[in-house]
């Protein structure tokens, strides 16, 4: 039998609680600072504006494209390579007074007339400023609703201390992932938001498995201290936690490398999210529950008075 962790010895995870709390705390602060200084690099979905992806027959010369666009009156256009040398992404901020929905076509015509008639239109996206604001609102709302619904479910199934632990782990993962996107200046669009919600789903999955074990261990071993119980539960689930993270990271790597440009941000958010999600379900969720004073009494099944419980069994 191959195993990642030999379960004979219990690992004293909770002994390093202070160290990990410090690491998490620092990372959280760094993320929040980055979020408030750098802000998030919101994509078109949220800012509004026009984006056009074009394919050139051969490697595109950025300077030529820029000057052509400038001559055509689009001096605020941001031009960059997208994935390959032949593909370009051109962005324009929302403009006043111009029929924004026509910008994409105008740019394409300008490029075709100015550079090469065989330039291919790959994608045009236009989002009105109001729609962008709505996406921000909806996205934030989705995130909050998800967190609250999960909190309620866990509180019902487990116990409030474990629920708070689970949700703190979630918030931890979301903030760190947002922090990464802000620090690296990666574009934050709707697919990344979807990835973030998937991270929430994944991280909670992990945390639930651990919490489940914590509860079971509390019930099984009356004599252990809460710290010992949590150490034991974490050790017992360690193997599973690592294997599942590994298989998930494997598929995400596939997505990252062969899934195409459009899905890159999505894959990045999930890869990082799964990584911190694994860390947080081991170190954050349980230590928060422990700090809140989770104990055996909290987790014993509520006694249900059964009919005939006061009589002797029939045997």
């Amino acid at each position: 039998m191959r195993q990642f962790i030999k379960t004979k010895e219990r690992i004293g995870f909770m002994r390093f609680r202070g160290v990990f709390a410090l690491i998490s705390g620092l990372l959280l602060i760094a993320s929040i600072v980055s979020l408030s200084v750098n802000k998030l690099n919101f994509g078109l979905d949220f800012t509004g504006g026009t984006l056009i992806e074009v394919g050139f027959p051969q490697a595109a010369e950025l300077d030529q494209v820029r000057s052509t666009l400038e001559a055509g009156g689009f001096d605020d256009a941001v031009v960059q390579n997208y994935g390959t040398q032949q593909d370009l992404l051109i962005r324009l901020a929302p403009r006043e007074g111009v029929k924004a929905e026509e910008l994409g076509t105008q740019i394409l015509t300008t490029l075709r007339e100015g550079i090469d008639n065989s330039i291919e239109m790959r994608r045009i996206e236009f989002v009105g400023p109001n729609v962008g604001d709505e996406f921000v609102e909806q996205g934030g709302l989705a995130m909050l609703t998800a967190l609250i619904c999960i909190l309620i479910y866990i509180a019902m199934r487990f116990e409030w201390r474990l629920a708070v632990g689970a949700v703190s782990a979630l918030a931890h993962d979301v903030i760190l992932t947002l922090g990464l996107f802000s620090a690296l200046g990666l574009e934050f669009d709707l697919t990344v938001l979807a990835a973030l919600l998937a991270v929430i789903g994944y991280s909670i999955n992990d945390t639930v498995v651990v919490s489940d074990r914590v509860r079971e261990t509390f019930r099984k071993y009356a004599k252990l201290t809460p710290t010992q119980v949590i150490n034991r539960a974490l050790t017992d689930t360690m193997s599973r936690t690592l294997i599942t993270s590994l298989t998930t990271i494997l598929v995400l790597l596939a997505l990252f490398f062969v899934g195409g440009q459009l899905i890159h941000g999505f894959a990045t958010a999930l890869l990082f999210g799964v990584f911190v999600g694994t860390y947080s379900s081991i170190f954050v969720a349980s230590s928060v529950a422990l700090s809140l004073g989770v104990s055996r009494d909290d987790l014993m099944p509520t006694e249900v008075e059964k009919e005939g419980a006061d009589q002797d069994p029939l045997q």
Partner: protein
Amino acid sequence: MLNKYPLWKNLLVIFVILLAALYALPNIYGEDPAVQISADRQATVDAATLDLVRETLKSEDISPKSIALEQEQVLVRLSSDKEQLQAREALNKRLGDHYIVALNLAPATPSWLKSIGAEPMKLGLDLRGGVHFLMEIDMNEAMRKILDGMKDTIRSSLREERIRYTNVSVEDNAINVELRSDEDFQQAEQYLDGRYQGYQMVVDAETNTVTMRMTEQKLAETRDYAVSQNITIMRNRVNELGVAEPVIQRQGANRIVVELPGVQDTARAKEILGATATLEFRMVDTENDVRDAVNGRVPFGSELLPSRNGGPQLLKEDVILTGDHIVNAGVGYDEYNRPQVNIELDGVGGDKMSLATKDNVGKPMATVFMEYESTGERDAEGNLQFNKKAEVVSVATIQSRLGSSFRITGVGPQEAQNLSLLLRAGALIAPIQIVEERTVGPSLGQQNIDAGTQAIIWGLVLVLLFMVIYYRKFGLVADMALAANIVLIIGVMSMIPGATLTLPGMAGIVLTVGMAVDANVLIFERIREEIRAKRSPQQAIHHGYDSALSTIADANITTLIAAIILFAVGNGPVKGFAITLAIGIITSMFTAIVGTRAIVNSVWGGKRLSKLSI
């Protein structure tokens, strides 16, 4: 003890997987390039059309794979994209204005599969290529139009009743009627009270004013009507464009989603869909002088409008007829080869026109071309602002009483084309603006499909390898469950009529592949623990499955909550991710728990074991 599944459970597993496989099957047959022919309201598609199509294709040397008449449409399957374009061009020329020839990709599903309702998954625009528009309706203008109509009605009925008024005006969802005398006021009060449904009467005896205010219910109804009317007209226009399988849906209070798969020429699509052009017919005010009006003295009841050729024209405010009554319009040429638009009116329109022109023979009538242009700005309530652009395109003397069919001149050739198309499809009740657009070219669509498929295959291969290396024979069982899970996801996606596969949806499948084995990992780790705790292999299997069950359920339900919320608030592509994720979670619970147990039971469950390959 022995682990055995009752026969029905084994059969259930086999049945479910076979059923899903059957419905997933159409996806491997691919699609044929096709041309789809349908008729507008003026024509029908029947056997004669079928013959005509066959003949046309033959004369063009195009040999189609098949030609079929189904659901009042002719579907021609062709063997290449090139032939598809040739066929469309030829058919368009031959069939004429009343037939719509659209390009399409027809699934090459064999007929035995079709007969049980099996169809391939619907692909989203990001995979298939096409345009997605989100359009917002200008509600202010819609309300104004309706109130204006009401104003005219009240005015003419007061006139008929010989109740004298000094002014009838529209103000904030209400119509103010100022009466000339106390006597008129009393008459008006009596006459108007309760006459118009949905309007509430408020009177002010001091100023002799009667106000007809729209009730809240009527307001809501009117808004709904404006949206649904616009949707109907949008549908007509999309049909005129010749798009196969378009989606036109309402979204929220004042928005419409339009999805046009396969459309490349977005400029034309936008021009036609967003156009608010309509016509109005009005009498020219010949009693007053245009020059006075230009100098600022516009007579009461008249309006000064710019003219396309030459100076401004003074027209009566009363509209004889609006574009709504036009049932058909086509382009023609007069004897000097100048373009003209031939117009046919419906019964009501014909009557109105006939009534209005009866007493006006010899007088000039103007055709007014009206269009709304978005200014891109919004008012305090967030409503879009539009400029109304009205222009006199032609003034013609009424030669004789007009009926339900006549023609207008004074437009350019391209304009005549577009105008006749728009008039055929109907005028939008309220102007609209495109607030979101996403266009994906066909090569990017195919590239997305390839990338998504690659990611799924690579992800699957990596996980399959890992599981069989780490858990050996039990890993093989988990691998079988994983493969079955993919089949189930595709089968279910194909079965649900509204489900669409998008690129994020494919990412959802990839993610599910990675997470679906989690249930098996949980179970197998439990079994290993039980074995370490010196339980017999059979007991270990039994307890392993049992004790992992509640954990798996908890973990999956929480992920499902996230997926459902994502579905509820997400837009198109994100919804696609939520769907595959949710379906994947549910199917993976079935394959990973019930499916693997069925295999484990039948392989290891029935015999004495001393060791497990786990």
